Structures are given as structure tokens and as C-alpha cells.
């Protein structure tokens, strides 16, 4: 089963929502920044740019496309792991489940961190003026 099929058929994954924020300037500058959901957040970065922000308390599976291929990240029971990676030595997969700290896959440029510092209670999503 392909990952996409898995994502579409999993009811757990259906409950997971991903937020992405794209910052673009009309003069042509291109940046990606992420929006922070409430509670503890799993931040998945590719090339130092956040591509996914997921609540730690919602189970689900996502993948990101790195230079070597797809890195698959699983969130379950308030823990996160790299389930699968196209890198050679699979050190990142061998790190197993974490509840704090970070998972790093240097060859595929993927970094997964659990961010316990930021809460969104007062986060402002945009500013007018």
C-alpha cells in the first residue's frame, strides 16, 4: 500500500490536520514559515524550513520529500518516530520513539523536533495595520 493510500484510508490520519504557512512576497522572495497549533507541537523541518506542524496528541503519519526520497514520520501516544527513511544507515529510524528532543536525518535533511515551549493561547496569526 502506498503511503498516500495509507493516509487516505486511515481514520486516525483523518483526524490529523496539518498546517502550512507560505510566506511570499510580490517582489519574488520566497519563504516558508509554519503556524503553531495549540499544545505541544511536532515540527518537521526540511532543509531548515518547517513544512509540517502537528499536534503531538493526535496520532498520524506524514511524509516529507527530501533529496533522497520520502521520510515517513509517525506520531502515536504522544510520541514520535521516524518510521521509514531512504537514507543508507537509517540512524534516524533506529533512534526509535521520542517524547522530547529531536530526531535528525542528515542525509535526507529532515529534522523532527517536539516543541514544548510554545503555546498558542496568545499567538497572533496575522497583523492588520
Amino acid at each position: 500500500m502506498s503511503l498516500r493510500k495509507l493516509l487516505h484510508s486511515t481514520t486516525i490520519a483523518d483526524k490529523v490536520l496539518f498546517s502550512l504557512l507560505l510566506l511570499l512576497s510580490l517582489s519574488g522572495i520566497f519563504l516558508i514559515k509554519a503556524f503553531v497549533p495549540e499544545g505541544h507541537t511536532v515540527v518537521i523541518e526540511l532543509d531548515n524550513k518547517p513544512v509540517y506542524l502537528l499536534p503531538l496528541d493526535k496520532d498520524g503519519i506524514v511524509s516529507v520529500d527530501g533529496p533522497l526520497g520520502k521520510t515517513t514520520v509517525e506520531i502515536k501516544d504522544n510520541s514520535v518516530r521516524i518510521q521509514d527513511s531512504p537514507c543508507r544507515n537509517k540512524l534516524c529510524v533506529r533512534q526509535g520513539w521520542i517524547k522530547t528532543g529531536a530526531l535528525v536525518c542528515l542525509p535526507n535533511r529532515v529534522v523532527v523536533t517536539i516543541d514544548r515551549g510554545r503555546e498558542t493561547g496568545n499567538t497572533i496569526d496575522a497583523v492588520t495595520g
Partner: protein
Amino acid sequence: MDTLVTITVVSRSQEKADRAMNTAFSEIEQIAKLSDFYSPESEISMINRKSGISGVTVSPDVLEMLSKARYVSENTGGAFDITIGPVMSLYDFHKGIKPDASKIRENLHFVNYRNLSVDRNNSTVFLKEKGMLVDPGGITKGYAADKAVEILKQQGIHAGLVAVAGDIKAFGLKPDGKPWTIGIRNPAPGNSEDDIIATIGLSDMAISTSGDYERFFILDGKKYHHLIDPKTGYPASGCRSVSVIAKKGVFTDSFATGVFILGPEKGMKVLDKMGFEGVIIDSTGKAQITPGIRGKVEFKKTPA
């Protein structure tokens, strides 16, 4: 136009989100290109070049924007006037140049939205008098935010936020089930960009703010900002900032300007008449809020 566009979407799939955001951004870019006052290739420049000569066939976007602009002029007693171009272009906010009073008087003659004819049946726009100029700066960004949200929805996105500079449109709810939190910039003199005076939660609504701090220069102790009263040719002085909340960004953008120019008293009446919500911070720093959002606007700082 150097405008920062922020698009946020809530989606289950990164690919879908990316595709939707890129399509929405292309739409914004396209609208910006069509309505660029300074680019000779834009439709707006074509309309301006043909003033007093002939009508110009325009795209549905420009037609819609200009027809809405007329509607806003009519509903603000001309306080918002998209034909402000000839007076606006006399000012140079970068260099701090204040035009001669005689020159302002001379060019004020060309400012009259009634002489902007928008023919929806033939998709043409005509400036009836030579020398007239439309400057859509006060409506384009809000309109672009509307269109971007439309595109995102067409692409299957159910929640998100589009901010074209300070013109913001939010739809759906955040992943945590809450509305989007919008900060209103503090208009007190000398404020910084990240200084927030109040916040409000919005969903399926647009908000825009016009403030005297956006583009201005100070000459002989007097502040000259870009919100020019089409009746006098000089900056309006009743407000520091006006935020308008309504369904459509095309209206929040333009009415924020119109209400600012009308001043707090008349401005509140217009908001009431239109059924819009808003926050007006007057020239003394006092805030007035429309009844519909009282208790929903959270002030971080005491206005004054």
C-alpha cells in the same frame, strides 16, 4: 509594489496545500500586475492613458474592482475616491515632498469618481476627462485577498488565512477549532510594526486597517500621510487608524480608507449603515468600537 503576502492553510496533505497556495499566489500576482499604477503595461495605466479619449476593454478583475470602487465612493460620500490619482501623485512620501497649494487645487478638479464610467455589459472603463487618473491602491489588496480565498476553497481547502499586507481574510477554523487571531497594530506615534493594540478572533471575515503611520513624512512639525481627503487634497486628520471588518476584503480595504477620511463621527455612521464592524482610533488615541464586536476585541494596551 512591495507587498508581503502570507497564505496559511489547514489541510491533510502537503501536496494539496502547496498546490492550492501556489495557485492562490499566482492569482494575487496576476491582480497586482493588472492594477499596477506604476507599470505602463497594466490595465490601470491603459485606462489612465486613454482618459478623455476613449473607453478601454478590461479584464473581469479590473472591471469588478472599479465597479466596487464606485459603489464605495457612493457610500462614503466620495471620501473614498479611486480617481484621487492626480492629487496623490503630487505627493512624494519617500522624499517628503509636499505639493504647492495651487497645484493641489488645480489637480483636485480631476478627482471625481462620477466621471469614472464602468460599463459592465461591454467590459469597458472610461475616464471621462483628460488628466484623470485611477489609483486602485486602496482596493486592490482587499480584492486580491478575496480572490485568493476563493481559489483556496476551489482547491478543496476548508480553512486558512490570506494576508495581503494588512488586508486579511480568514476562513474556517484553526486546527485547534478556534477562529484566527488577528492583531491590530498600535497607531500611537512612534510605534513599531509588531506593537499590537488589540486582537480579535475572526472566521469567514475580512479585516483591513488604514493608518496614518503607513506612509508619511513630517514637515514643519506637521504629519503628512497618504490618506488624502479627495475634497481638500490634504491628509485627513480625524483618525490615527481605522480597522474595518466585513465579509469581503474588497470592502474592508476601501471602507477603511473612506472611514478614516470621514473621521470618527461620520465614519461610525457609515459602518452602521453598511452593517460593518470596526475599530476607530481617533487622533487623540481614543478607541471607538462598533456594537457588534464589543467584548470581542481584546485590548492589550489602553488606547491613548
